Each structure stands twice: as structure tokens, then as C-alpha cells.
């Protein structure tokens, strides 16, 4: 299903009764993955949705990664109405790493392993219909002591 978002938005605004609907129903994940900066990736994903730091996200990621090729990441939360969880590694060439779409039949609790090119802030973004909640942490990636 390919909808021209601008056209759709235009028609909704024209109807004048769309004030209750979020401005972006369709996140542009393809564009977000291509983005080379976290800011652009966030914009592509979440548009103008308000974003706020939250202590209600359990974000587990190591302080010092054993190896940048395999960094374990876990995100879970009891926040209501979670639609998706996104992981971003700010300093990666393409910061967007993965996005998990949580249906009402699933629980907002995922784990995976990501590649990090170098030390970076890593973010967990939890999306609900009217807000994006964020938790972030600095993860150090180092050269091995034995020379690699």
C-alpha cells in the first residue's frame, strides 16, 4: 500500500477534523535507515512527535563493550500503548540499527545484538501514539589490549 503522505496529509487537513490524528501515521523506516545522522533518522521516524527522556525504560547495554561487533542490547518497559521500540547508535555511519513493531499480542521487551563502529551514545526509543520516550547510554568500544 503506497500512500503519498503529503497528499494524504493535505486531504486530512482540508477535512479540518483531523486534529486528533497524529501528524505522521507512517514512519519512513527506509529513509531512517539511510540517514547518516541521528537527528535526521529521528525526524524520518518520528516527525514532530514530542520526545522525552524517560526513566520508565529498562535499557540494558554494557558500559564497555567486549567487542564492538557484538554488543548486547535489551529494552523493556511497562509504558502503556507501545507501538515500537527503536535502537540507535549515534556514531555509526547509519545510526538507525533496528526497529521492533510491537503488536497488542506482544510485550514491549526485546533483546538483540548490534554492531558499533566506535564509542557512542546508544538510544532506545519507545514510541506510543502521542509521544516518543527515550533512554540513552554511553557505550565505550575499545581496541583490544593484545593489539586487536
Amino acid at each position, binding site marked *: 500500500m503506497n500512500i503519498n503522505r503529503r497528499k494524504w496529509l493535505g486531504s486530512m487537513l482540508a477535512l479540518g477534523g483531523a486534529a486528533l490524528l497524529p501528524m505522521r501515521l507512517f514512519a519512513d523506516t527506509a529513509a531512517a535507515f539511510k540517514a547518516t545522522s541521528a537527528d535526521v533518522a529521528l525526524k524520518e521516524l518520528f516527525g514532530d512527535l514530542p520526545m522525552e527522556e524517560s526513566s520508565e525504560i529498562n535499557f540494558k547495554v*554494557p*558500559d*564497555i*563493550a*567486549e*567487542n564492538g*561487533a*557484538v554488543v*548486547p542490547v*535489551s529494552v523493556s518497559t511497562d509504558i502503556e500503548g507501545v507501538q515500537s521500540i527503536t535502537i540507535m547508535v549515534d556514531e555509526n555511519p547509519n545510526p538507525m540499527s533496528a526497529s521492533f513493531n510491537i503488536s497488542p499480542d506482544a510485550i514491549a521487551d526485546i*533483546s538483540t*545484538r548490534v554492531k558499533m563502529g566506535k564509542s557512542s551514545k546508544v538510544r532506545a526509543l519507545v514510541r506510543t501514539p502521542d509521544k516518543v520516550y527515550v533512554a540513552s547510554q554511553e557505550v*565505550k568500544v*575499545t*581496541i*583490544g*589490549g*593484545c*593489539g*586487536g
Partner: protein
Amino acid sequence: MVRTTILGAGLLLLGSVALVSAPLASDTSDTNSGIDPQADRQALRDFYSQRFPDVPLEEHKNGVYAFDEGAREQWLEMEDFPPYEIAVDEGAELYEMPFADGQGYPDCFGDGAVKGRYPHYDDVRGEVVTLEMAINECRADHGEAPLAYDGAAITRLTAYMAYASRGQIIDVALPEGEGALAAYESGRRFYSTRRGQLNFACSSCHVQLAGNRLRAERLSASLGQVTHWPVYRFKWQDVGSLHLRFNECNSQVGAEPFPPQSEEYRNLEYFLSYMSNGLELNGPASRK
């Protein structure tokens, strides 16, 4: 002739102040050479007991994860579903594939749980025999070409066999007789001889500085280093053998490395295995 232990020799080589008193082995062996593996092993165990007072000796089978909290947490996360399982699966498939003559690995090794038998010193052949050698000998016996010692196939086979052998206790027979003692001593000497541009001996890092930080990581003890091979190294993004790691480590100190399954590395493996007698096999494992 009074014989110094490896610790004594290592400290002499490094010329540093003794961190622990170095017990001298009494000449209990019945040869004139004064080589005393039992005393060496006890001295090494005593050293690590003192160096890591809160770590039970058997725990060193997990390397730095025995004492580095941050690394241990990540290791436990990886153990939840470790990447080496894929290599074990692939190894199982290879293990079950018959040779052209209709026979297969099970005819040589049964269910594959034989890692506890290797390495051992073969008096008749006059050399240390490793699992990798035995695999290629099985192949030769059935008219199959040998596998490259650090190729993907042999590493997957050993991953499967290591997994099948988990829990077996390392029990290398006490080196007795000239040949075995010579192989043991060759391994021990290699281990405590400085080499390369960085002029490190294995013992420099893994005895003298065991537990210390080297940039962002900590150095593991020699005790337990042979229990868990082949290893899935995140750096390699693949499983690799103990000898590959020896080779890599020698290169990293700027020394000429030896090929996998060379006599030098087989003797080194033999020495290190005897040192780890009593520890449990727990391969394959993940490491950074």
C-alpha cells in the same frame, strides 16, 4: 641438581621482585634431567590461588570472565544463545557425513565425545597427538584427503566434538619416560621464553601480570586456558583453534609465529593441558 619451577624461571627471566615466594621443586623425578611436572603444576596452582584469592581454581576455565565483572555480564548474555552453536550444528552435519568408502568419523571416534583423550604423548610415535591430528589420521585411514588445520571444516568438527565432550575432566598422564618429558619440557620452555619485538613470554602476561589490565581488557590465567577450544572469537566473527590463537598471540608480540599443529605448538598445548589437569572441558566458548 635443584630444579627451579616455571614460576622461578619466569621470575628470573623477568628479573622482577618475586610477588610470591617461588617454591623450588625437590628432585622427585627419577631421571637425571630434574624435570618435575607435578611440582610445576602445584606451583602454578598455588600461584593462582594467591593471585586470585576469591576465584576457585576451576573457575579459570572461563578465563577473564572468572574475575572481570563487566565482561562476565556480557559473556552471560551471549551464553543465552551463543554464536558457536551454529558452528556446532555445522560440525554435527560434517561429523555424520560418510567418507567415500562408506565409513565415517563415528567409526574412529564413536559419538565424538573424545576430546578428553587429547592431547596425549604417543610413546610409539614419539610425539604429542592432538584431536586435530587424530581427525586427519582418521580421514587418511579411510582414503580421504586431510583437512587444512585451520580451515572451517576441521574447526566445526572440533566444535561439535568439544561440545559433545563437555564435562570431561582433563587428565593428561604424568609425562614419564624421556620422550614425554622432553615434549613437556619443550612446551614449558616455550611458555617461559621471551620472544618477539615486545620481548614477552607467555608467562609475562599470563603468570606475572595475570589479572592486570592491558588497555581495556584484563589478562587471563594460564590455568584453564586450554579447556574451552575451539573458541568463537568476536574479533574473528568465527570459531578458531587454540593453535590459531597461539599463532595470533605470537604475531602480536612481534615474534615469528608457528603453523597450527607444528611440533612447537603441540608441545605447548601438551604442557598447558597437563597444567590444567583436573579442570573440566567446557568448549566451545565465546571470547572477545
